[in-house]
């Protein structure tokens, strides 16, 4: 791959690799905290390549959530630009940005955030429904995915009737049902024991990784670091490590 993708930190904003899934340059993000302003990200440059499972790791408060929010288009950076598959997403209008997310990004939230009053298939079908796909067709497509995730028989159950693992599979199905080019996954294993966590990560690797799809996983669960293709470590708003494996000092 292009060497530029692996270069750490200090490079000036400039030419992105056209093949990069995400190309972030000079990301700065400040938060207002009363009178003072806290700088959470100090000029992050980073590229995410498709076909890889990229981990973003770091302690609480290291800025990893802020970074991932900015990279997937739900939080405006104070400065810097983000290109997702060549599109400078923060130059889009608000509604174009929303539409861009709807068609290109799949989300798996830490608490799943499933809608409690609709069944698993409908929950999984939400992105399609939001795109305007007819309800039955969306359900059918979601069911196919649920079958692949081995919970096809739970399609008609409400989220509260499912176990935690099953709910997470529904959440994964929702993230993938519209075939996005970028999947963002927030702490997928936080609530699971070690073996379940590994099973989920195996499953993710099996269904989420595709040659033209990037997959970003935000986690601080060091039990699964060994499953990463690439790990970006963040500390106090700066990238401290970018490589295929985690250095031991982490």
């Amino acid at each position: 791959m292009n060497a530029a993708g692996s270069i750490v930190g200090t490079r000036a904003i400039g030419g992105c690799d056209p093949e990069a899934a995400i190309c972030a340059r000079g990301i700065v993000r400040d938060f207002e905290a009363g009178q003072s302003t806290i700088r959470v990200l100090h000029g992050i440059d980073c590229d995410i390549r498709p076909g890889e499972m990229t981990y973003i790791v770091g302690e609480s408060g290291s800025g990893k959530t802020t970074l991932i929010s900015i990279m997937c288009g739900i939080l405006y950076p104070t400065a810097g630009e983000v290109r997702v598959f060549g599109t400078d997403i923060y130059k889009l209008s608000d509604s174009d940005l929303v539409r861009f997310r709807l068609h290109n990004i799949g989300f798996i939230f830490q608490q799943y955030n499933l809608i409690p009053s609709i069944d698993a298939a409908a929950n999984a079908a939400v992105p399609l429904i939001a795109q305007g796909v007819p309800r039955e067709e969306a359900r059918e497509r979601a069911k196919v995915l649920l079958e692949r995730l081995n919970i096809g028989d739970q399609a008609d159950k409400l989220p509260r009737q499912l176990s935690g693992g099953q709910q997470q599979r529904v959440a994964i199905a929702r993230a993938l049902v519209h075939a996005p080019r970028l999947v963002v996954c927030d702490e997928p294993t936080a609530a699971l024991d070690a073996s379940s966590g590994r099973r989920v990560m195996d499953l993710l690797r099996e269904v989420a990784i595709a040659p033209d799809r990037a997959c970003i996983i935000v986690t601080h669960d060091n039990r699964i670091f060994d499953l990463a293709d690439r790990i970006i470590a963040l500390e106090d708003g700066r990238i401290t490590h970018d490589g295929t494996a985690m250095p031991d000092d982490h």
Partner: protein
Amino acid sequence: MLRNLSFSRQILPVAAVIGLLFAVYMIAIGLPDRSLAEPAEQPPKAVGALANAPRVAGAGVVEPASEVIDIGSALSGLVTEVRVRPGDKVAAGEVLFTVDARAARASLRQAEAAIGEARAAIAEASAAQATARQQLALYRSLADPAAVSRAEVIRAEGEEAAATSRLGLARARLAAAEAAAAAARTEIERLTVRAPIAGEILAVNIRPGEFVATQGGGNSQPFIQMGQTTPLHVRVDIDENEIARVALGQPAVVSPRGAAELHVSARFVRAEPQVVPKRSLTNSAAERVDVRVLQLIYELPPSDAFRVGQQIDAFIPARGKPKDAPRAQQGA
């Protein structure tokens, strides 16, 4: 997809819509009928040419053309015979009722007896006078004065004078008796009450055996009421404020109370010269009214719809001129 019916998502909204339709229906049929209604019976109204012309309305009563005549009696006494009934048509002079005349007839018979007696006395006196005169003439025709004594002649002359004066007395008694008979006949005639004009008997308030008094009390009923009922007249009261507007001489449209759909045209007869306090036409005896009215008399055409004493509503044309100008402005 849940195939079973959801209460809150399907049944409830449908029930809500049905409930709303039910409510709309209930509200619609519950709305009160506040529409104005046409009067079921015809109220009196101006018709024909008067309907859209200036007019004056008045209320009135029907009366005979002669007005109502309350028949009285010249003498008091018991009623012996009533010859008419209400509704009878009578000619002028026809006997209406008679009052007990026995006393008058007795004095008539008395007078007739006196006449007979007087006539007899006249006959007797005439005979005596004739006898006396013959005797006297005989004595006078004797040439020999000594044939009859002077005393005899004086006696004969005295007899003749006495017979003559007796005859005069008897004649005077005859005249007196005849006068008495005439007086009795007049009395009898006065005890028979006759119709003063041709007309219709409207009311008979006496019956044989009742006493009629010449001094009628203030509120006593008249013995007999009659009047000329062909034609009938109506007496229409016009509010004094409207007098100036009335077109005198124009025919009026008259409807009887309770039969307002009947309209007849009545010919103007006259206006009473005096404006009088409005008489009660509202059946209340105690009514006191401070309104004065002009009374107009109209003649009704022949009709069965009107009876004497009936109340009527009348519409009379108004003089258009003074009120026309403001009305035209109002109409504009």
